[in-house]
């Protein structure tokens, strides 16, 4: 007998008489990345962007705001192009640390969530520590890690893993905890093994929350990567932020901010599409 199923007979949610409304669409909480956008909407979005960027340009020039306070958008874009040759190696370093740290943290977080939710007692013991990891800024550990491991990538990768792992873990655990006993019983009635129940029922069932965990975890990873680079070492976009601000080279400084914003949004869009593909059944 499947331990998780035990003796329990699931409650089936009975449909209320006359209750219709099955056809809820997928676009419930669309954040503007929907695929059925009209030409008019696209035009409006572009127009608003032009107005904001152009407006900033004009206002900054109009009021003569000095460059070292806030450079104009055009200066920032120019700096991005002229400095690109110096910036891209740092971009690669940041992406490398983020990717490796996130991959390590996310895998450990996912496996932990999958295992721990099977054993409620273990879960009770482990959860407080995971919460501790979630709520403690991992950046605080970086100086300590540098002391131990030097100024290479390792301390930052560890910090990223520590920051993103628990996020993936708590969200995935929430997903794995949503057991639908009826679906597990169904699989068991067709002779499913515990492993098959895990791969064919539990994982798909938890998928929406797993994807949320991966998204939040990777964004936290990005913040931690940049923060850790600002704390110590001589590489990465975070290091460039400290460098350019120390030299009061504000257009270059904001060019880095722009790159970071683009990375962040790309992460969001990536997981948005993954969610659309693998978890759209939920909405």
């Amino acid at each position, binding site marked *: 007998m499947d331990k998780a199923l035990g003796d329990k007979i699931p409650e089936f949610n*009975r449909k209320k008489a006359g209750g219709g409304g099955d056809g809820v669409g997928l676009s419930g909480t669309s954040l503007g990345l929907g695929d059925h956008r009209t030409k008019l909407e696209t035009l409006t979005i572009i127009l608003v962007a032009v107005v904001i960027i152009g407006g900033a340009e004009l206002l900054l020039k109009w009021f003569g705001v000095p460059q070292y306070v806030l450079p104009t958008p055009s200066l920032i874009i120019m700096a991005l192009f002229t400095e690109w040759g110096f910036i891209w190696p740092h971009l690669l370093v940041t992406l490398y640390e983020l990717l490796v740290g996130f991959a390590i943290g996310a895998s450990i977080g996912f496996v932990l969530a999958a295992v721990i939710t099977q054993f409620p007692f273990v879960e009770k013991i482990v959860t407080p520590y995971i919460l501790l990891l979630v709520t403690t800024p991992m950046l605080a550990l970086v100086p300590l890690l540098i002391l131990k491991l030097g100024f290479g990538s390792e301390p930052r990768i560890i910090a990223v893993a520590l920051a993103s792992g628990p996020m993936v873990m708590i969200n995935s655990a929430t997903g794995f905890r949503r057991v639908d006993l009826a679906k597990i019983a*169904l699989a068991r009635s067709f002779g499913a093994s515990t492993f098959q129940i895990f791969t064919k029922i539990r994982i798909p069932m938890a998928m929406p929350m797993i994807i949320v965990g991966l998204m939040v975890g990777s964004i936290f990873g990005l913040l931690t990567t940049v923060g850790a680079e600002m704390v110590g070492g001589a590489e990465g976009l975070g290091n460039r932020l400290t460098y350019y601000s120390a030299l009061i080279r504000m257009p270059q400084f904001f060019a880095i901010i722009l790159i970071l914003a683009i990375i962040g949004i790309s992460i969001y869009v990536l997981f948005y599409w993954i969610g659309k593909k693998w978890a759209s059944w939920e909405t």
Partner: protein
Amino acid sequence: MDATPMRNVAGASDKKAPKMVIAGATKYYQTRTGSVHALDNVSLDVRDGEFLCILGPSGCGKSTLLWSMGGLHGLTDGEIRLGAEKIIKPHPEIAMIFQDANLLPWRNLAANIALPFELKRKPVDQQRIDMLLKRVNLWGFESKFPRELSGGMQQRASIVRSLSVNPSLLLMDEPFGALDAFTRDEMNLLIQEIWMETGKTIVFITHSISEAIFLADRVVVMSARPGRIASVFDIDIPRPRPVDIQTRPDFIERVLHIKASIDHGRSPSEGLAIT
């Protein structure tokens, strides 16, 4: 459907060895607040090829009994055998159909129906599936997701899913309880036809006395906590039974008869609807 010949009248298969034997089935649930006595010494033979309905008030242990028959959970005492085999885990000859269709929302219809084959690591019997889909009028809906189908269509899909692996015993736990009256009539006709065409043995749980009489060769009435078998009624109405049979005086007579027997042995607060 299968090559088995059509049967003509009910109860023709009495003298064969029973399909399933339930002997002294007793079950206690252990809970935090103590133990719940759900089944008390239930003994019952399910005849080969019969349509058996189990009727009883809410919480009397119908699902508990059916889950034990399906090998989904164990008994505290007594045993259940399929032929000579003791049922201690799910058996390939037995398929269950749940209330609420129980389709996987992340799979389309085709993938939902393929699930049993995947789990059994067998090649999908597409020919049989297509035949079944056509039979229940779902042909052409394979790429639809459960949320895009009506309740009746979902339940038909779940019937196809169960029949696709050709079990000989179907256990159905209030399969049409969540459907509206019209769809329910349709489904009752369909399941009667399928039963007549395939020669499967069906055990069917319901709250509705008239649904039980409409479908069954025998109606087993259970009494509330702890679940016991209160009485068994033979239903010898010839088949196929049309839906409007339920308005005929002799049918209503049977309903009242069973209802009276239930009212006789229960406390007044709990009831069974005549639906």
